[in-house]
């Protein structure tokens, strides 16, 4: 029965698409799409209560399996909860080819549910790669721009590179256990588990936009703003964290796993923070921050607190989605997403207020919920040492810094004259408000006792923060907010461009160019060279065949004539007839053909003679 959860949105999008195409009424489309996604949410809730599971056998050896654990139940609830308002916003706000966009987004939600519910590596791999393909279609939605197509492919190829790790992991598991079920992962030998861990970690890092794969998220910005919101907040990017969170009990036995993941997570959190702090582009600012926050979630997993990662995923999702939507509305009005354009565009008061709440959550300011989960990450990291804890606090400070920059741009537009940017309809606005309301409603996690409650519910442990950690963290957040706002406000007021160091950082430390130079271009060059070589080989093959034919024809005339006459049977007669038809067609190279036939006949004769001889002797 659990299959209904992923199937409902996928099938509904296929069935509703033709209807959406013929009756392009926005409210009807928005409402029907949201109903489907919310029905999925209801199915998850119902299924969790009723203890649903699902199995589908491909063969004796391969079984697809779905199931719910406490952790995945929460994830499966968060996905449609965040997706519904985003899709409603998209249907009310976006422009061209809307039915396609909305259908893809609804289907995307379904496939993401499949990914979350998977209980074996085959199901996971299926969902994992389809998510990538759908993101390709969504990022390249505005096809008139060739660049967007290129970006879509870049995103798909980067994540597929990581997917290879998941393939290898699945091979290892099958080789070790004869199945692909999560439940059998514990039976693997330590060495195999280590290879498995390397594979899934690679896949998770690429999907969740961690170093060195992080830049694909920039390419993903080519999609419409609601697509970015969907990918970052609730679906694609979350896949990596959600996977490692589930596998953490198995992976923690691998000695290098914790330290390695911690290092990558922290490095991405800091670098992503620096990227977002220097980018002059509002969507890229948010994209850098996404990498950074997923980095923090990996830190929590690495420290042994998967539930902390889950809570931060949920709270990050509800705050990041409205930020993207508001940025989208403003950028739409401004004609671009550069901060200086947005600063020159008035934004409606209500949207600005909603944005302020969400951006303070991004900054990690108590009492908002996202601040609590960030403190939890810090407390978890503190178990691994002071340096990790300090770096998490620093990442938090950076988060506040770029949050301040974002706010400065939106605040600057407040006083401008002109048509205020706003979401076009009640549904679109409603989507933003609902998400911001969820941000506010998460605040009670700060209350004492919430930790015990969550711990019981998720059957996992939470960390305890020390007072000085909280103090340091809060100080850095306030400092970051102040500096970020001031710095950005001054820069915007002065109208000064970005400095070289800023451009370097904003380009993800030149990583995309590096990949282009070290991988893409060499492979292309090899491909073109091989293609040329192969072309020549084709001609060489022909020449060789023709030459062989000439030689054989000569030899045949000299020595083989009698044999040809002598064996006018079976194959030769048949081929001869076909040969005559060929003559009718053309006559340039027929002697080659005849000579080849002659070789066949001679060979057959030789074999027959040999056979008679050996047959006679045995």
């Amino acid at each position, binding site marked *: 029965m659990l299959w209904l959860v992923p199937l409902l949105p996928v099938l509904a999008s296929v069935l509703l698409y033709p209807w959406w195409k013929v009756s392009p009424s926005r409210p009807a489309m928005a409402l029907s799409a949201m109903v489907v996604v919310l029905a999925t949410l209801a199915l998850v809730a119902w299924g969790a209560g009723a203890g649903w599971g699902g199995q*589908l*056998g*491909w*063969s004796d*050896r391969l079984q697809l399996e779905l199931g719910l654990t406490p952790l995945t139940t929460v994830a499966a609830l968060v996905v449609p909860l965040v997706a519904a308002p985003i899709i409603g916003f998209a249907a009310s706000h976006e422009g061209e080819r809307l039915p396609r966009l909305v259908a893809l987004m609804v289907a995307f939600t379904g496939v993401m549910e499949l990914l979350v519910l998977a209980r074996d590596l*085959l199901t996971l*791999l*299926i*969902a994992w*790669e*389809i998510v990538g*393909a759908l993101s*390709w279609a969504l990022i390249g939605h505005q*096809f*008139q*721009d*060739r660049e*967007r*197509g*290129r970006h*879509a*492919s870049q995103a*798909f*190829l980067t994540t*597929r*590179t990581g997917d*290879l790790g998941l*393939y290898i992991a699945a*091979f*290892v598991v099958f*080789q070790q256990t004869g199945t692909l079920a999560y439940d059998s992962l514990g039976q693997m030998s330590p060495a195999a588990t280590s290879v498995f861990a390397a594979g899934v970690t690679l896949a998770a890092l690429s999907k969740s936009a961690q170093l060195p794969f992080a830049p694909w998220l920039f390419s993903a910005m080519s999609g419409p703003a609601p697509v970015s919101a969907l990918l970052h907040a609730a679906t694609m990017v979350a896949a990596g964290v959600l996977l490692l969170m589930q596998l953490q009990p198995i992976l923690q036995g691998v000695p290098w796993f914790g330290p390695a993941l911690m290092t990558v997570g922290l490095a991405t959190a800091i670098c992503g923070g620096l990227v977002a702090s220097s980018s002059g582009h509002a969507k890229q600012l948010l994209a850098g921050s996404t990498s950074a926050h997923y980095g923090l979630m990996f830190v929590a997993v690495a420290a042994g607190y998967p539930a902390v990662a889950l809570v931060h995923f949920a709270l990050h999702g509800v705050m990041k989605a409205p930020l993207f939507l508001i940025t989208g509305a403003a950028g739409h009005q401004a004609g671009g997403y550069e901060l200086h354009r947005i600063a020159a565009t008035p934004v409606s008061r209500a949207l600005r207020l909603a944005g302020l709440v969400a951006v303070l959550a991004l900054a990690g300011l108590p009492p908002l919920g996202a601040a609590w989960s960030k403190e939890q990450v810090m407390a978890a990291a503190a178990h691994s040492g002071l340096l990790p804890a300090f770096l998490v606090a620093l990442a938090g400070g950076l988060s506040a810094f770029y949050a301040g920059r974002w706010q400065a741009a939106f605040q600057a537009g407040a006083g401008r004259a002109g048509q205020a940017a706003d979401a076009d309809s009640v549904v679109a606005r409603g989507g933003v408000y609902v998400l911001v309301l969820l941000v506010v409603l998460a605040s009670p996690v700060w209350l004492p006792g919430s930790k015990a409650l969550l711990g019981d519910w998720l059957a996992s442990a939470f960390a305890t923060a020390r007072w000085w950690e909280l103090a340091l963290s809060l100080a850095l957040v306030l400092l970051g907010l102040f500096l970020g706002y001031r710095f950005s406000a001054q820069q915007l007021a002065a109208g000064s461009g970005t400095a070289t160091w800023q451009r370097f950082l904003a380009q993800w430390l030149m990583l995309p160019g590096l990949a282009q130079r070290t991988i893409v271009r060499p*492979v292309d060059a*090899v*491909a073109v*060279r*091989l*293609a*040329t070589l*192969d072309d020549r*080989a*084709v001609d*060489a*093959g*022909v020449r060789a065949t023709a030459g062989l*034919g000439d030689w054989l024809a000569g030899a045949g005339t000299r020595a083989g004539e009698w044999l040809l006459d002598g064996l006018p049977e079976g194959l030769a007669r048949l081929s001869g007839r076909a040969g005559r038809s*060929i003559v009718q*067609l*053309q006559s340039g*190279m027929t002697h080659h*053909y005849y000579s*080849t*036939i002659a*070789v*066949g006949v001679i060979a*057959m004769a030789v*074999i027959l003679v*040999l*056979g008679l001889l050996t*047959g006679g002797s*045995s």
Partner: protein
Amino acid sequence: MILTTTLAVPLIGALVLALWPGCSDTFARRWAMAVSVVPLVLLLVAWARFDTGGAMFQLVEEATWVPSLGMGFRLGLDGIALAIAAMSALIFTGAIAYPVDTRGAARQYYAWMLFLETASLGVFLALDLLLFYVFFDLTLVGMYFLIGRWGHGKPQYAALKFFLYTLLGSLFLLLAILGLYLSADPLTFDMRALIRQQPLAGAGAFAGVVMAAFLLGFAIKTPLMPFHTWLPRAHVDAPAPASAILAGVLLKMGTYGLIRIPYSMMRETFAAWAFPLAVLAVVSILYGALVALGQKDMKRRIAYTSVNHMGYAVLGIAAAGAMLGGSEAARSMAMAGATVEMVAHGLITGALFLIAGSFWQRGETYELADYGGLSGQTPKLAGVTTLAAFASLGLPGLAGFVAEFHIFVGTFGVYPWLAAIALLGILITAALFLRMLQSLFFGQLPERWKTMPDLSAVELSVLSVLLLLVVIIGVYPAELLDVIATSTRALVEGN
């Protein structure tokens, strides 16, 4: 009689067209379509009758011919042959139905198509080595005329090259068949008897020579690098439906033959040769993908991906035959994967070549750079092409993934490093197909394509059927895997 009828109906259909000069183009087309449906339906009946718990070869039909030499007219099916034959019959129906410019010779065109259908299905249904060889060679004749008379570019040159090169392959095949036959005791061409006998077991160097000849013959047909050079020219100049058949059906004869003859009848020798064959397959996988990436011509690009995909199939077969005992689970997976790859590649690449034909019909060019921005102008064409391209790059939920996943999992259990290296192939194919989609469908629409028509109802329905099957196999391949398992149980696990 069901199998004999399957082969006889298209042949009779072809003869009717050949002997009736007065028939109109429309009639010829409708007649051919109607006739080509019959084998498809009969094979589906055979599928329904096939007992998945039963013996390896079923529905056997036998008539003695030259008993003293062990020759006979023997037809029958195992799970692998059934799957491939049914797929082939479908491709034929689709290719015949697909609109094509027959240059005023529709009667001849459809007659050759039907003739080719009998020959092709005959290869998969034959249970007699000699019969197998005769059908194998007859397919060359049919394809030769289809390329030579209805191709474009330099069709006669391409057709002759195709013919000569693959005839060279079947020459080796003939030598090998005779070598195998003469070692059998009693002398027989009956495949079942030869599989039981394993005539060349312990025959030393002679077995090696026969194996080399078989591998060479089938490697040319499949084709494996470096014997693939006949392929691109033939594909580019062939009319699209013939390309679809060439890639979808004719190439399968190489891999099918590999399973049916050297793998089954010379287990011991095959196991000794499995590793070099697997290495060659991996080279083909990577080489085919890289060269495809370097192509600027849509049809050539698709043609080279065949080298890549058939490389996967050969890798699976090599892994499955790598040893005589042990790792049964992995080897069965590899063999099942190789078979699914043949079916999947037939459907997917068949669809891709038909799509290429639709581009040719509209624009008379295969140059990728000539197209662009077609998403808005021809949304159906864009949708179908995208689905087929993703299927070919091995996206899960589509048939290609099921095949490749089985092959990789299976190969990993036998040759882990080869599987890991071959895995890079799916990354390169992803790149080459995505770039193809970019050049066809992204960007501004060039002025000259402002009036390009979208897919017609016939085109769309043929492609939909093929791709619907690709989706069904991708989501729920149990039915197909079940039929194939009948053979893998016998071929890999020995029961």
